[in-house]
C-alpha cells in the first residue's frame, strides 16, 4: 500500500520537482557568468595551475610567523600545515608562492637560518607558461571526456530525450559542484580538475542504472521500477559518500592533493543524488508517460 501512496504523491508533483534543479542550475549559470566576468576564469587556481613554487618544510615551524614575516618577500604567499593524524603534532608546513624556486629557497633559508636540503624539505616549481598550457589542456581533456561520455550514452540508449536527460544530469552535477567549490573559495590544483573528471564517471553510473531499469525492463509499473532503481542507486551513492568521507577525514591532515579530490567528489556525489533522483527521474518519467499517452 505504501507503494501506492508513493506513486500518487510522486505522480502529482514530479514535474514540479524539476523546478528545484532548474532554479539551482539557473543560479549556477548566472553565478558562473558573473564569476567569469570578474576573474576571467572558471575557477580559483592554485600554484600548480598558475605557476610558482610549493615548498614543504619538515619540522615544527611557526606557520603564522613565517607567513607574516615573508608576506612582503614572497609573492602571494600562503601556508598550510601537515600534522600527524593521531598525535595532532605538526609534521611540516607547506609554503606556496608565485616566486621562483631558487629565489624562494634563498628567502626561506634566510628566514629559517639553516640550509634547505632533501632531508628537511621538498621543492616543487612549475613555470607559469607550462602551468597555463597545463590548465588549458586539462580543460580540453574534461571537455572531450564529457563529449565522449555523451556519445557513449547516445549509443547505449539510442533515444534522444533519455540520453539527453543523463547528459544534463551529469552536466548539472559538474556545474553545481564547481559553483560550490568557488563559493567555498577553494583554490583548485591539477588534481582537483582530475576530480571533476572522476565525477563524470561517478555521476553517470546511477543515471545509466536508472535509465536502463526504466526503458529496458517491462516488469512492474514505472513507479515500481523507479523505486527499485532508487533503492539500488542510493545505496551506491551513499556507500561511495561514506567511503569518501572517511578517507577524507584520514587524509585531511596529510595530503592536500587527495583532500581536494575527495572534497570535490563528496560535493559532486551529493549533487548527484539530487540530479539523478529529481532531474533525471522527472525528465524520464515525463518522457515515458507522454510516450504511453501517444
Amino acid at each position, binding site marked *: 500500500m505504501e507503494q501506492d501512496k508513493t506513486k500518487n504523491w510522486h505522480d502529482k508533483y514530479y514535474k514540479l520537482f524539476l523546478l528545484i534543479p532548474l532554479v539551482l542550475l539557473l543560479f549556477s549559470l548566472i553565478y558562473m557568468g558573473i564569476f567569469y566576468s570578474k576573474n576571467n576564469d572558471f575557477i580559483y587556481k592554485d600554484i600548480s595551475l598558475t605557476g610558482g613554487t610549493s615548498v614543504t618544510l*619538515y619540522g615544527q615551524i611557526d606557520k603564522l610567523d613565517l607567513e607574516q614575516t615573508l608576506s612582503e618577500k614572497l609573492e602571494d604567499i600562503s601556508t598550510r600545515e601537515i600534522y600527524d593524524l593521531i598525535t595532532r603534532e605538526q609534521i611540516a608546513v607547506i609554503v606556496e608562492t608565485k616566486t621562483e624556486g631558487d629565489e624562494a629557497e634563498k628567502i626561506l633559508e634566510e628566514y629559517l637560518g639553516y640550509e634547505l636540503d632533501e632531508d628537511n624539505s621538498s621543492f616543487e616549481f612549475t613555470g607559469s607558461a*607550462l602551468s597555463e598550457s597545463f590548465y588549458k589542456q586539462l580543460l580540453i581533456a574534461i571537455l572531450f*571526456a564529457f563529449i565522449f561520455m555523451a556519445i557513449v550514452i547516445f549509443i547505449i540508449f539510442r533515444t534522444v530525450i533519455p540520453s539527453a536527460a543523463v547528459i544534463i544530469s551529469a552536466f548539472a552535477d559538474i556545474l553545481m559542484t564547481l559553483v560550490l567549490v568557488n563559493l567555498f573559495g577553494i583554490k583548485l590544483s591539477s*588534481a582537483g580538475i582530475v576530480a571533476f573528471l572522476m565525477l563524470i*564517471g*561517478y555521476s553517470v553510473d546511477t543515471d545509466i542504472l536508472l535509465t536502463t531499469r526504466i526503458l*529496458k525492463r517491462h516488469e512492474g509499473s514505472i513507479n515500481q521500477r523507479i523505486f527499485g532503481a532508487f533503492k539500488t542507486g542510493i545505496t551506491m551513492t551513499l556507500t561511495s559518500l561514506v567511503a569518501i568521507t572517511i578517507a577524507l577525514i*584520514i587524509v585531511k591532515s596529510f595530503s592536500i592533493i587527495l583532500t581536494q579530490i575527495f572534497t570535490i567528489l563528496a560535493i559532486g556525489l551529493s549533487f548527484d543524488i539530487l540530479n539523478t533522483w529529481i532531474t533525471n527521474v522527472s525528465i524520464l518519467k515525463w518522457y515515458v508517460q507522454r510516450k504511453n499517452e501517444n
Partner: protein
Amino acid sequence: MKIKLTWKIWLLIIVLALSLISIVNFSGLFEKGVLITSVESNSTAFEQGLRQGQIITEIDGKPVETLEDFAKIIQEKFPVEENVKTIIKTKDSEIILYSDKAPQITVSEISKTKIKTGLDLAGGSRALVQAQDKKLSAKEVEDLISITDNRFNVYGITDINLRSVSDLTGNHFMSVEIAGATPKDLEKLISEQGKFEAKIGNETVFIGGERDIASVCRNDATCAGIESCQQSSDGSHYCRFRFAIYLSENAAERHAEITDNLEINSTNPEYLSEKLDLYLDDVLVDSLFIGKDLKGQVTTQISISGSGNGETRNYAYEEAEESMHKLQTILITGSLPYKLEIVKLDTISPVLGKEFIKTIFLAGAAALFAVSIIIFFRYKKFKSSLALLVTSISEIVIILGVASFIKWNLDLPSIAGILATIGTGIDQQIIILDEAKQSLSLSIKQRMKMAFAIILGAYFTALVALLPLMWAGAGLLKGFAITTIIGITTGVLITRPAFTDMIKRIEKD
C-alpha cells in the same frame, strides 16, 4: 558453500595468484642484507667497485641483516683520525676500502615487493625541460636526451630516467627523473649548455661547438668505425675505433702552434709526448695520443681514436662502438645546441613517503570496512557482504600486480585512480546484488545478464572519459588514467563476472 567453483571464479583466483607473483619480490623475502641505493661518484667506495643495486651482507666480518646493523657498525667505526681498513662483503664480491670517512653510500632494506613508487612517494627529482624561445621537435628532443644521458653518465649518475614527453598541444619536453638522492647541481647539469675543452698540457686547443669544430664524422664507414680487434695476453679482447673530426681554421692553427713545441714520446715513438685531454665541464673524459705526423702541422682534419675492452670480442666491439659514439656526441654537442629552460622542477624528500603510504592504507582500509558494514546492514547477508569485500580487495591486488608487471611507478595520481576504481567497483557490485534480488520471474542468469548491460554501459563511459587524460599535461597525470583503466577493465573482464558467479551460488543456497 559447495566447493565446486565456476571457471569465472577460477579465472579470478588464477589472475590473483599471478598478480601476487608479480608483486612479491621472492628473493627479497629470504635474502638478508641491505641494498645499496646510491654511491657517491668520485668516492673511494665507487672507485673500489661498490655500485647501486648491490647487497651488503657483511662488514668487517660482522653480519649485516638490517639497516640497524649497518648503522651500528658504521657509527661505531667512524669518524676516525686516520685511514682504516673496511671490508665490505656483498652478495658476490668483497671490497676493501681504506678511508677515514664512512663509505659514501646510501642503503635501504631489501624491498619485499616489486611495486615501484613514484617520486612523490619515494623521493627524488623530476624536471621538465624545454628550449628557450624555441619549440622543439620530437627529433630534437631525442637528440637532447642522448646528449643529456651522455652527460649524466660522465657525471657518474646512472639511475636516471630520460623520456620524451609531449602534450595535447604538440609541445615536446624532455622529462628527467632521478630516484632517490638529488644531485646537488641538478639544475645546472640539465640546463647549462656545457663546456667542452680539448687541452694539451694546460693549453686549450679547441673547444666543443661550431666555432672550433667544423664537423665530426659519424655514421660514415669511410671516416669513422672500428679499425681492428685483438686479444691481449691476459685473454681479454680490445677493439680500436677511429673517426675524423674537422677543425675550423683558427683551431687548426692553434693546434699547429701547440704541437710544434712537443717532443716525440720516448716510450711510444709513434706519438707525441703529451696527450690531447678532453674535458667536459672541467671533468676529464678522455685522453688521446697525438700521432707524431701531426707535430706543427696546420691540419683541419684530426683523427681521434680510442679503444674498448671486453671479455669477448663482441663485448669489446660494442664497448668500442659505444665509446666512439660518446666521444662523437661530446665533440658535436660539447655545448647543447640550444639554451634550455626548466619549466618544472620538483625535488621531493623521501622523508614523508613511508608515513604517507601508511596513511593511504589506513584510509583505504577504513573506507572499505565502512562500506562492508553498510552492505551488511542493507542486505543482511553475511556471505554476500564478504564476497563484495573479497572482490574489492582482489581488485586492488590485481591493479597493483599489473602495475608492477608493467613497471608503472605508482605516484599520487595513480593512487587516486586506484581509489576511484574501488569506488566504482563497489557501486557495480551493488547493482549485481540488487539485480539478483529483482524480478523473480526471470532466471538468475537472465538477471545477471541485465546487470551486466548496465555495468558495460558504465564501463565504456568511464573508459572514454579517461582517454584524454593519457595525453593532457605532459603525462603528469597519466598515472590516474592508467590505474583507473587497469582497474575498470579488470572489473569488467574478471572480478565482476566472478562476483556474479559467487552471488549466483549464494542465491541458490
